[in-house]
């Protein structure tokens, strides 16, 4: 019903998107500000970006964050996909209710609780806090997001395809990797990206579970923000926004192409 897309709807969309985007746009604009004062425009300058790269602490934190995010997103994608398969394929097994509860609860669990409880676990297990404890913590909460994303794709997947492969003598692993995985791949990739950005963003859980030598970028940004707002933080935020935006745009182009390809294939079959 394109005709009923009235003025009210357009106005609410414009206002809504302005609200969503204006703060981010302002943040980006003021990262190019000449003045030390974030809110007073004094001309265009990229000097904050230059000073950023000579900031050793920030660069170290960025490197730690990138490694944590990459490793945790990869493991979380494997575990989350398994969890999604378990939840969609096996409707009856002992403890399924507990399992599905544990998959969905972290989605809404306040981060302070997750962070504190994981820290106490690591201390009880006598784990040295640092890179690996942050990574484990990130795997744990982001695998649940992956599971939800993959599950939504799996429910629409025709199971008889995989059964056919099994009947034709494929091992379960082969049937999964050659039949199911290619179909759900866009969702798996989306899940990986989501896990990656969740890890990149996380301040609270990382603060609890991290130890000396494993300061992540959000922790660094947070401690600087507490000291005051500076254009340098705007600059690093702008870079992060840029990376994420490019990633999302590439991903959406890829999935769109795949969608078109899939439709073409389906039409060819029909």
């Amino acid at each position, binding site marked *: 019903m394109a005709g009923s897309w009235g003025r009210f709807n357009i106005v609410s969309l414009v206002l809504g998107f302005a609200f969503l985007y204006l*703060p981010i746009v302002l943040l980006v604009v003021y990262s190019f500000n000449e003045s030390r004062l974030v809110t007073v425009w004094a001309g265009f300058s990229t000097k904050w970006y230059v000073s950023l790269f000579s900031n050793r602490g920030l660069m170290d934190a960025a490197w730690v964050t990138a490694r944590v995010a990459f490793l945790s997103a990869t493991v979380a994608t494997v575990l989350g996909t398994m969890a999604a398969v378990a939840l969609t394929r096996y409707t009856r097994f002992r403890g399924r209710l507990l399992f599905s509860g544990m998959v969905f609860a972290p989605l809404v669990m306040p981060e302070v609780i997750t962070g504190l409880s994981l820290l106490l676990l690591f201390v009880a297990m006598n784990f040295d806090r640092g890179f690996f404890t942050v990574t484990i913590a990130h795997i744990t909460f982001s695998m649940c997001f992956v599971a939800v994303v993959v599950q939504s794709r799996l429910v629409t997947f025709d199971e008889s395809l995989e059964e056919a492969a099994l009947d034709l003598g494929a091992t379960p692993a082969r049937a999964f990797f050659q039949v199911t995985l290619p179909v759900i791949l866009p969702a798996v990739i989306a899940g990986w990206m989501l896990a990656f950005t969740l890890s990149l963003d996380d301040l609270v859980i990382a603060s609890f579970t991290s130890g000396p030598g494993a300061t992540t970028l959000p922790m660094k940004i947070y401690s600087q923000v507490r000291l005051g707002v500076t254009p340098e933080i705007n600059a690093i935020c702008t870079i992060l926004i840029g990376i994420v935006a490019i990633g999302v745009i590439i991903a959406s182009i890829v999935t769109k192409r795949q969608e078109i390809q899939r439709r073409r294939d389906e039409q060819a079959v029909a």
Partner: protein
Amino acid sequence: MGRFLSALAGRFVIAVPYLWLLVFFLAPFLIVFKISLSEPAIAMPPYQPVFDFAQGVKTLIDRIGDLSFANYLWLTGDPLYRNAYLSSIWIAGVSTAITLAVGYPIAYGMARAPASVRPTLLMLVILPFWTSFLIRVYAWIGILKPEGLLNQFLLYLGVIDQPLVILNTTTAIYIGIVYSYLPFMVLPLYAALEKMDNSLIEAARDLGCPPLAAFWKVTFPLSLPGIVAGCMLVFIPAVGEFVIPDLLGGSETLMIGKTLWNEFFNNRDWPVSSAVAVVLLLILVVPIAFFQRSQARAREAEK
């Protein structure tokens, strides 16, 4: 042979994520609960190195024999905590209502948009969600400050002649929560509204129902699952929110997430912060269970 392998694969696929979540999600809660019952006096002295820290907790766990509810009594006795819980629930509730009021027209406009634009609009809603939470909250500091952009703009327009004090007030927390959680509200609402059969509205209109009444009697009830999901997705994490009250709120606004953080990082009182976490969890158990049931039902309906 194939059946056997298949069953084995099934076991494996279930067992690995299951074990992971048992160890790293469920077990930690039990430890939190245990520690919350230990004497506050055994709490680690502040500035000890990590190794002794670990030993401290070990002996602490060994001495679980003498459980004590002192921390909980302390929590209920101290008005600071009670107020923090109550104001967290209040702030989260009010913010959820505002988010719903802001998000509904957006989701409605999206669902009524021509089908060709919808994917783009959807992506525009999701995109801010991908950018860091911390960054989005930080962006508001520059806007809401007394010498910030909003005040400059309003002064320029002549609407006000004194800068408004918004940063470090509860209003700033509301703005921060509504802004940060808006995508969580819009997405389930949009999903519910988009699925809706438009002919229902047309039928109502044909039968002489005025537009507003048609919305209220047809569209709104049909979007209820989306409303419930959206409200839960905003309310539950907002109750325990830390970053927003810490960066945007003032010292007079107590929220429990911030209290827990201070108790842990500043006072280093692990037993009390564990007790704070357990009580927070108990408060949230009902909405979380409710959320899970509605999710499960939605999933069933999809099949």
